[in-house]
């Protein structure tokens, strides 16, 4: 693997909630995403996936730990970082300013970074609209977001994210709000562009099948911690963490028959403990840490396998 594009080192983010209750959104997360690599981050809602993306993108400050981009601190050179790292949002309806035409939306990064003249920006916008499959681009330049379908909006958002030819992209559930039939097209587009541009990519999803389809490596997050991480095929094929297995069962069959427990985890123990079919005494007392069980395959569980 080449030098990591983006690295998270012991990254934590704590939210101070109401009644002085602290919420550990992200807890001591270590992560490295290489150039040309797609890292799929999977987990349920509230597991800290989106916060991780926001931390990596510098939209939020970590409570502790740090983020490195190509070995340097993005906060030190924000302009350069913002030019090379881009974000794609979940909701294509909210991600575009409803008052701006497609041309202005797509060329906004160029305007921000002062790239090109008006005519050059227009040409570049046309080229990118074509690349994301909105052809002929002429038909789209002057449209407003409300005149586009969800899939088309997401394509516009992708064109906007990539027009500066960034080196790293974080995509936060970019297809979860789209119809299946539309989702396929967007996934294909993202995979193609990622390969053509050699992008490093953090791809967040709650769908393991989608994660496997697009990623080289997959990380599974639960309650702010990475509980399993490894090559996509290994994580899906030989899942070691009981939570990953539950996710797989949910994805494969669509129905889980076992009953759920809604009890809170013990403060020192494994956070998945109360929901875990394998939990033993040690799981209540000691939190497991990521340990290698195969080639690049790590799992945080006292009873993996």
């Amino acid at each position, binding site marked *: 693997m080449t030098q990591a594009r983006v690295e998270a080192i012991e990254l934590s983010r704590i939210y101070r909630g109401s009644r002085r209750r602290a919420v550990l959104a992200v807890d001591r997360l270590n992560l490295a995403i290489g150039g040309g690599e797609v890292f799929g981050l999977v987990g349920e809602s509230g597991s800290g996936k989106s916060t991780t993306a926001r931390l990596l993108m510098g939209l939020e400050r970590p409570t502790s730990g740090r983020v490195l981009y190509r070995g340097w601190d993005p906060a030190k050179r924000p*302009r350069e970082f913002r030019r090379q790292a881009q*974000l794609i949002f979940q909701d294509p309806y909210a991600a575009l300013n409803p008052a701006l035409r497609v041309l202005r939306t797509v060329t906004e990064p160029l305007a*921000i970074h002062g790239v090109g003249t008006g005519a050059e920006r227009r040409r570049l916008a046309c080229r990118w609209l074509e690349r994301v499959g909105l052809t002929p681009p002429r038909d789209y330049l002057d449209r407003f977001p409300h005149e586009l379908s969800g899939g088309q909006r997401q394509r516009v958002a992708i064109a906007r994210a990539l027009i500066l030819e960034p080196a790293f992209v974080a995509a936060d559930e970019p297809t979860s709000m789209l119809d299946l039939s539309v989702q396929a097209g967007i996934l294909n587009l993202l995979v193609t562009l990622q390969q053509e541009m050699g992008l490093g990519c953090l791809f967040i999803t709650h769908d393991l099948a989608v994660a496997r389809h697009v990623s080289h490596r997959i990380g599974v997050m639960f309650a702010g911690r990475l509980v399993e991480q490894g090559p996509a095929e290994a994580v899906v094929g030989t899942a070691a963490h009981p939570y990953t297995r539950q996710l797989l069962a949910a994805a494969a069959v669509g129905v889980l028959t076992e009953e759920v427990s809604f009890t809170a985890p013990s403060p020192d123990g494994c956070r998945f403990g109360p929901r875990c079919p394998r939990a033993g005494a040690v799981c209540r007392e000691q939190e497991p840490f990521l340990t290698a069980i195969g080639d690049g395959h790590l799992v945080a569980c006292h009873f993996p396998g």
Partner: protein
Amino acid sequence: MLKRRRARSPALGLVGAGILLALGLVALLAPWLSPYDPHHRASRPFLPPSAGHPLGTNDIGQDIASELIHGTRVSLLIGVLAAAVALSLGTLVGLVAGYYGGPVDVLLMRLVDVVLVVPFLPLVILLAAYLGPGMWNTVLVIGGLAWARPARVIRSQVMSLRSRCYVVASQAMGGRPAHVLSGHVLPGIMPLALAQFVLAASHGILVEASLSFLGLGDPVRKSWGSMLHYAQLRGAFLTGAWRWWVLPAGLMITLTTLGFTLVGYWLEERFDPRLRGGR
């Protein structure tokens, strides 16, 4: 009940717009509309209404109808200028407080609270008396105190806009605050600011009339408030003259305020997300 109000308000807004349009025309065409120069003695003083002087003459023989028509200019001008000052200040404070949040927001909003809590009219009177009469002083005094309400309304809208995905996207692309504010946030608050402007103008006109009535207005310009001031001074309130000297000016003030308020509430209802929530 709610439904009826909603169905009626566009019509009311239109009525308000009609009133404002008519007043604007009167102000523009004042020299041609008024039969006499309001600053010159046209006849004997204290004349009752007649064919030559539809509203009679005042204590120094000036035509009251002409005064009324020219007063439209001053009243509207001061109201609009004061609103412009109030809105510029209010928008700036609202934008900064809403966008940056944190301690800046807390500080600015406490300032807003202070301005809102202080009794408005006494303070205005005090300041106007201290600064002395004059149109610009009136504008500054009113504008300098009326910005708090628009600031608060605009701040809440900015806060809601700030968390929109496309604003975050713009920040993530590296957009500096100036770019994000002018490109995404300001356009989003324009409709709301317009509504606030109209309401502030109506308020401004009322306050200007009050100040002038108290003799704190610009002595060389004819405004409705100053007409009332002299009417009161010469005892018109106690004699039959109030019908043509006091009533018309009072009605004009009421009409103007009504016009601005109708338009303002209509705009506010259309654009304020909180009032629109029930839809």
